Structure formats: C-alpha cells, structure tokens
C-alpha cells in the first residue's frame, strides 16, 4: 500500500494576532483521508488555528503547510464551515443559493451556473439529507439543519481539506448523525478534515487524530493515545474531573 500524502504540516508553528501570541509551538502532521479534532477549552485558540490554516492569521514562527503550500495559497482547495448560529437567520437566501456559494469559485463572476454546478449542488444537499429543502429560506431551517446546509456548501466546493468550526454545538441528534455521515464519506474520498469541538465522544467517533490545545499544544496523535485523563487534565486545568480512573468529564468548555 502506498504511503498517504501529508496534507497538513505544523512545524513548530506559532500564530499571533499582531503582537499578541495566541498559539505557540504547534507540531503535527495530518494525511489524506484523515480527520483531526481540535480540542481545548474556550479561548484555547481553536478558531485561531483554523483561521491560520486559511491564511487569515499570520504564522509568526515556524511553518504551517496546507496541501504542500503556504495556507493563503491553498484556499482554492480548502473549504471552511462556520458555525451556523453566527449567520443572520433573516437573510433572504434560499438553501440552494447558500450551497451554490460553494461553487462561486468555479462559476466566476459573470457566467450563469451550469447544469454541472446545479447537479453538484443537488448532490451535496442529498449527502447531508436535505434534498427536499432546496427552495426553503435558509433561516427557516433548524440550527442543526443550517449547519448541514453549510457543510453541503463546503462539499459542493469539492475541497481536498475541510475545516469545521464547532459544527456540533447545539445540534440535534438527527443532524449530528447526518454531519458525521457526510464527514465520513468525504474522508473516504480522500479529503482531510480538521474539526474543532468540545465533544470528546465525537472526537472518538469521527476523528483519527486529536490535537489538544490551550495556547500551547498538549498532545497531537491518534485519538486513543492522546485523549488520556492526564493530558485532558493538563489541557483543561482545574475543569477536568476524573471518574473511576479512566473516564474524564470536562466541566467547563
């Protein structure tokens, strides 16, 4: 079997907003078809790392490489999924229009969406289980369904890397299942996935690797090896409780 190509390389990377360092000394590698969970408390720098992977926050020391390129030059092949509840529910766009936004780079400014664009849009909606809602207004959907639409938008862009910012926050069980399925099938097609989450169970379920973050890196590696009580306690400080030796509850996220 051939070695899978690395898609994300963190090499002693430090990330800063202006003069304020946010994340320091990150190290790790993610390969094609792998998913990595970013885990850490609020303010740990998970969203900042995602922005750095998009080239929107500068790397001040070390190196970040996305798909073999500096992050800002890899954007064409990277899709970003924001948290659905950061978007205005009154905005007058249909579900179909939102998903079509994922095709904008291919469509350009003037051309009308082609039959292929429409087919990709429809297929992406199908994959998140919302094919019947294409014509509904985005804001009329539930929070979990909106999150699925945003994932469909990313799928329609045919990315080689997918970045998701807290996609499971406040999401119902049906939507969570649909999101996990869709992420799984993207991985099978060779895309790499980076997902920030509070939810350790989801990290276990969906991700091969975990990156424990709180300003610094507290671990990066296979989920089973990294999600240990000791490391979680180190990452979360006083907010991790141990139950019967091997299970950990994080009391503040």
């Amino acid at each position: 079997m051939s070695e899978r190509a690395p898609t994300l390389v963190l090499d002693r990377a430090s990330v800063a907003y202006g003069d304020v360092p946010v994340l320091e000394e990150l190290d790790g590698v993610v390969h094609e078809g792998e998913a990595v969970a970013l885990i850490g408390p609020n303010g740990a720098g998970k969203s900042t790392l995602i922005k750095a992977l998009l080239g929107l926050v500068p790397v001040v020391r070390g190196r970040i490489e996305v798909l073999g390129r500096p992050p800002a030059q890899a954007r064409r092949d990277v899709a970003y999924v924001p948290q659905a509840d950061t978007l205005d529910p009154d905005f007058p766009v249909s579900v179909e229009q939102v998903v079509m936004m994922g095709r904008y780079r291919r469509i350009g400014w003037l051309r009308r969406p082609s039959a292929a664009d429409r087919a990709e849009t429809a297929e992406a909606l199908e994959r998140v289980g919302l094919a019947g809602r294409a014509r509904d207004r985005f804001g009329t959907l539930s929070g979990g369904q909106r999150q699925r639409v945003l994932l469909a938008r990313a799928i329609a862009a045919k990315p080689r890397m997918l970045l998701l910012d807290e996609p499971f926050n406040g999401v119902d069980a049906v939507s969570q299942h649909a999101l996990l399925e869709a992420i799984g099938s993207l991985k099978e097609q060779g895309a790499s996935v980076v997902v920030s989450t509070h939810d350790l169970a989801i990290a276990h379920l969906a991700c091969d690797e975990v990156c424990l973050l709180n300003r610094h890196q507290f671990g990066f590696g296979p989920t089973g090896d990294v999600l240990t009580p000791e490391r979680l306690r180190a990452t979360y400080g006083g907010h991790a409780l141990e139950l019967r030796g091997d299970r950990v509850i994080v009391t503040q996220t």
Partner: protein
Amino acid sequence: MILFEPFHLPFMARALVELVILGVLAGTVGVLVLLRRLAFVSDTLTHTVFPGVVIGHLMAGDDGIFWGALAAGVVTAVLLTLLTHRRRVSEDAALAMLLTTLFAVGVVLVSRQTGFTSDLTAFLFGRVLTVSEEQLVQTAVVTVVVVALLAVLRRPLLLRAFDPEGARAAGVRVGLLDLVVNIAVALVVVAAVRAVGTILVIALLIVPAAAARNLSDRLAVIVPLACLVGAAGGWLGLVVSYQASVEYDLRLASGATVVLALVALYGVAYAAGTVRRRAALSRARRRAALEVAA
C-alpha cells in the same frame, strides 16, 4: 387623469424622470445597505458629502455641486472603509464624530454666503422641480455605472453580506469589496443631492428596500421590487405635492412629500408582509403536522 396630468409640464416631467432613475439606483444600492446593515454608515455618508456640495457650489456655482459632491463622496467612502476596518475607536462613535464634524464644516462654509438660508435649504432638501436635462444625464450615467458594477460583483457581494468569515476563507478581498459598497452609497448621495438633498436621500436608500424585503424572501424579487417602490414613491410624491399646490393652494415641499409617499408605501408593504408571514407560518405548521403524521 389626476395621476398623469401634472407631467405635461416639462419641469414636472423632468422631475419625474429624475426620481424614477434615482428610484432604480437607490433601490438597488438600498437592498445591499439593508443586507449589510449599513444604514448608519449610509447616513454618515449623506452628511459627509455635504461640505463637498458647499465647496463645489462656492467654486463653480450650481454646476460645481455634482463634482464637489463626487470628490467628497469618494474621499469619505475611502475614509469610512478604513475607519470601519481598523476598529481603534468604537465604530458608532467614530461615525458620529465624522458625520457631525464634516456637516459642521459644510454649515460654516455656507453661512459665510449671502442668501445663506435659501442655499442651505437647497443643499439639505434639494430642488427636484428645477432639475435640468444635464442633471438627468448625470443621474442616468451614475445609475448605469453603479448598477453594472453591483451586477458584476453580485456573487462576492452576496457571500460577503451573508457570511463574512466564509467570504474571507474563500479568498474574497473583503476590504476592497466594502470600499466598492461605500463608494456605491456615496454615488447615490451624489446623484440625488440636487434633486432631494443630502438629508432626504437616506429615505430613498432605506425605505424602498425595507418595503420590498417585507414582500419577498428572494433577492431576485426584492431588488426589482425596491426599484419599483422607489420610483412609485417619487411619482406619488410629485403628484400629491403638485395637486396640493394647484388645487388647494397648499405648498408642500416636493422632496419631503416624496419621502412621506415612500413611507406610506412602506406601510402598505408592511401590512401585506404581515399577511404573507402569517400564511407562510400556517403552511409550515401544516407541513410539520404532515411530517409527524408520516
């Protein structure tokens, strides 16, 4: 017929054409202002164009107004874009300062003139009944340029309005796009300044777009509808102010009457929108009930 008769007079016909063109321009830009929640930024631009109007008038009389407004509009659009992207000061406070400072500069300059009050009134509220053919051409040219620009940029504009982080992530140059929007708003003010004045133009931007939003959830409908409401408000306002003055000897300022006509249309749209939302809600409930039953 009462709705068409006034426009046999050439000056009324010119006023109508001007307001219809402005309706299309302000309707299109207004929808963008509404989506981006830029009402206060737009209001600031209407005030910061004012000193340009005064300086243009001082330098070259009535013909200087357009060019003075254009220069001030572009300069302040750039300033505002920088200001709202830096966030050193709270955005609202910075805008309010800029708005009043430049407005005061305009008032100081105009107060040094003889005939101060009449000039000031004209700059603030416009003189739609004295619109010249040259002005019509200027308004039409600005409208074509702005509408074409926004049509070309419609996809990045929509993405940026809906999801700014997503737009940045997709490589959209958000700063540049915001500058284009601010300049588009400034150009509406520039085009409208002699007809409706710097104060009333904000109504032309906001009210038709808000009315249209009540009537539809689809942008492909909202934009033309906003243009239509803007144009209809202009027409209705002119008819009312003309008939009031001819039939009842009541002098109603035409610019302000147009604004009130727009607000009346908004009232109608709001009522229709309420009915529409109720109907949509009961449809959604029925569908939910069917889904549960299935």
